[in-house]
């Protein structure tokens, strides 16, 4: 066991998988000598050589296409999209191509590609850097969307993603990169790609969240505990597929739920969670499903994001509202 930050856990996973499978390749913008703009790939080129860890020309669609071609030649590509806002440039590679290849080829070709990309607000980035675009990605058939909320999951989910034979979009939370530390095993381990995690057990209400919002939800749970309210927090961990069983089991137990996301409200993951509960768990409910999200505006970048991002007190207020319904 060693104490690792969220980003160190990611580097750790990458190093282990580069070491254990010589078909893995890491590439993208500035990932080589520079070790990535956040240092997620720090030291990996020096350790594994330029053949395995390399910089590409600056073009995201090219990075996506390169991944597909390399996968076709038997490699296990781990490309990095420097910031999630740049994913639009390569959406065809992802939605139009790699996610369809298994279907398109009748299961005769694998696309074992793990695309890593940082996202999430709170660090005052320029525009198109921190947007939560996971909703778009989660709607793509054939693509798994994974987003860890802590260092343990970051390492285990990334290793599972890299070893999976289907394309995985691995979303890393920018704000959590260095703000979270935890003891994690030094060796390689996996976390399943279709299991949500009950990170805190409770009996009165379920807060269903992912990525940075899990930590905000845990703080709300701590606060309400002092008033004798027992809050359960479910960390989705994977947005596609959604772990329906764990969500429904939690709601069956508590009878109340709030779905939380940092993204804009419309057609989001929280709406998906709410509709799942309405469809398959309505009779468990003592109150409507609550939803916490950002408003339906364009992401206001820079300092303005502080006022826009869903804050802990919004989660708390919505939780109280559903509890007292």
């Amino acid at each position, binding site marked *: 066991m060693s104490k690792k930050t969220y980003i160190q856990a990611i580097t750790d996973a990458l190093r282990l998988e580069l070491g254990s499978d010589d078909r893995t390749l890491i590439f993208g913008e500035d990932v080589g000598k520079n070790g990535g703009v956040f240092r997620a790939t720090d030291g990996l080129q020096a350790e594994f050589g330029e053949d395995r860890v390399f910089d590409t020309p600056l073009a995201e*669609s090219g990075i996506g*296409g390169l991944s597909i*071609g390399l996968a076709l*030649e038997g490699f296990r590509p781990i490309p990095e999209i420097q910031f999630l806002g740049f994913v639009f440039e390569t959406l065809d*590679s992802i939605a139009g191509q790699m996610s369809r290849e298994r279907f398109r080829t009748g299961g005769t070709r*694998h696309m074992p590609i793990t695309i890593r990309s940082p996202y999430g607000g709170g660090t005052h980035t320029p525009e198109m850097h921190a947007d939560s675009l996971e909703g778009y990605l989660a709607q793509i058939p054939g693509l798994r969307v994974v987003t860890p909320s802590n260092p343990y999951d970051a390492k285990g989910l990334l290793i599972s993603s890299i070893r999976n034979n289907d394309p995985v979009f691995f979303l890393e939370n920018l704000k959590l990169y260095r703000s979270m530390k935890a003891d994690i095993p030094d060796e390689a381990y996996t976390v399943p790609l279709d299991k949500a995690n009950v990170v805190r057990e409770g009996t009165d209400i379920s807060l269903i969240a992912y990525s940075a919002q899990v930590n905000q939800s845990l703080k709300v749970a701590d606060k309400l505990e002092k008033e004798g309210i027992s809050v359960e927090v479910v960390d989705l961990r994977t947005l596609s*597929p959604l772990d329906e069983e764990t969500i429904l089991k939690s709601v069956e137990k508590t009878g109340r739920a709030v779905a939380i996301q940092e993204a804009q409200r419309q057609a989001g993951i929280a709406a998906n969670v709410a509709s799942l509960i309405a469809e398959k768990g309505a009779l468990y409910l003592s109150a409507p499903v609550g939803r916490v999200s950002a408003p339906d505006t364009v992401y206001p970048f820079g300092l303005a994001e502080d006022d826009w991002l869903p804050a802990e007190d919004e989660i708390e207020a919505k939780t109280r509202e559903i509890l007292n319904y």
Partner: protein
Amino acid sequence: MGNEKSIVDFSAIRDALGNDFKPVQVMDGQSKVVKPEIVAKYSNDQLVDFLKLMIWERTLHQRSNALTRQGRLGFYAPTEGQEASEMGTNAAMKKTDVLMPAYRDIPQVIQHGLPVYKAFLWSRGHVLGNEYPEDFHAMPPQIIIGAQYVQAAGVALGIKKNKTPDKVAYAYTGDGGTSQGDFYEGMNFAGAFQAPAVFIVQNNGYAISVPRRKQTAAKTLAQKAVAAGIPSVQVDGMDFLAVYEVTKAAREYAAAGNGPVMIETLTYRFGPHTNAGDDPKRYRTKDEEEPWFDNDPLIRYRKYLTDQGAWSEEQENEYVEQVKADIKAAVKQADDAPKQKMTDFLANVFEEQPQNIQNQITEFQAKESK
């Protein structure tokens, strides 16, 4: 100020751009051999085999056209006029090379090894048509214009990393495709990585209805490779031997580890863009079409061989009948393919089925067993 000489003469630079590209030709439009040393490399039997490739493609086109009208094929993009360009490039490749085709490149996919009935199944949207054996080195025909170019760069880089000897990735697109971002990104990536890719642009004059001259201010499409540091060439796309020789040289260059190459073939789409309602009369004139029809790659090449006494009408008729019979058998085989089920679709979304897919498989299994 007005009369002062500018430090740069942009007009002169512009006028000179692309002037160094002249289409390579072996046999001209009147069947006159302009490069006898090339023709001399081949026996009459070899030259006849080349002709047969073009006749095969023309016959496949005619049958596909008819089958589409009868509703027995789904999507079909006519290939008539492009036989020298398609068969000439493809014949220069090896079966171990990786073909990255677009939707008008079905004849190449078949010649590369896909059974005809599978190509027909693909046209009908049957996934069985894309179930490729491991030793068949191609991607299914690309629908998104240019997307195969960035993927070809990846395949080529993979070949280089695997240190596979004598192997290239080759990708097709059209004149319209050269306007796509992926076209530039693919060539630039392959150039930056010095990867063994052969990029083929079949300039057939039109992207559906938009003529080549409206796609770009560039005089040639071949010169688009220059900016990526890639050698390129323009070739008479109605001249089989020229296309074949140029592609062979390009393949050899790339396979030897020299980096990627780009080829522009000058050809013409005789028919519509697809059989789904496109009418070239809306955007082309007879005056424009006629000289191209006269420039038919089969007429030129057939005349040469007939004049040599190496090919006759009887031989051609016999061969065409044989191809037609093969196609008929392929249609029958395609008809015999089992109907696709929803559970087949669901089984090919992920390797390991997640909950939602499992649930839907259970749901549809119940319906399908009724």
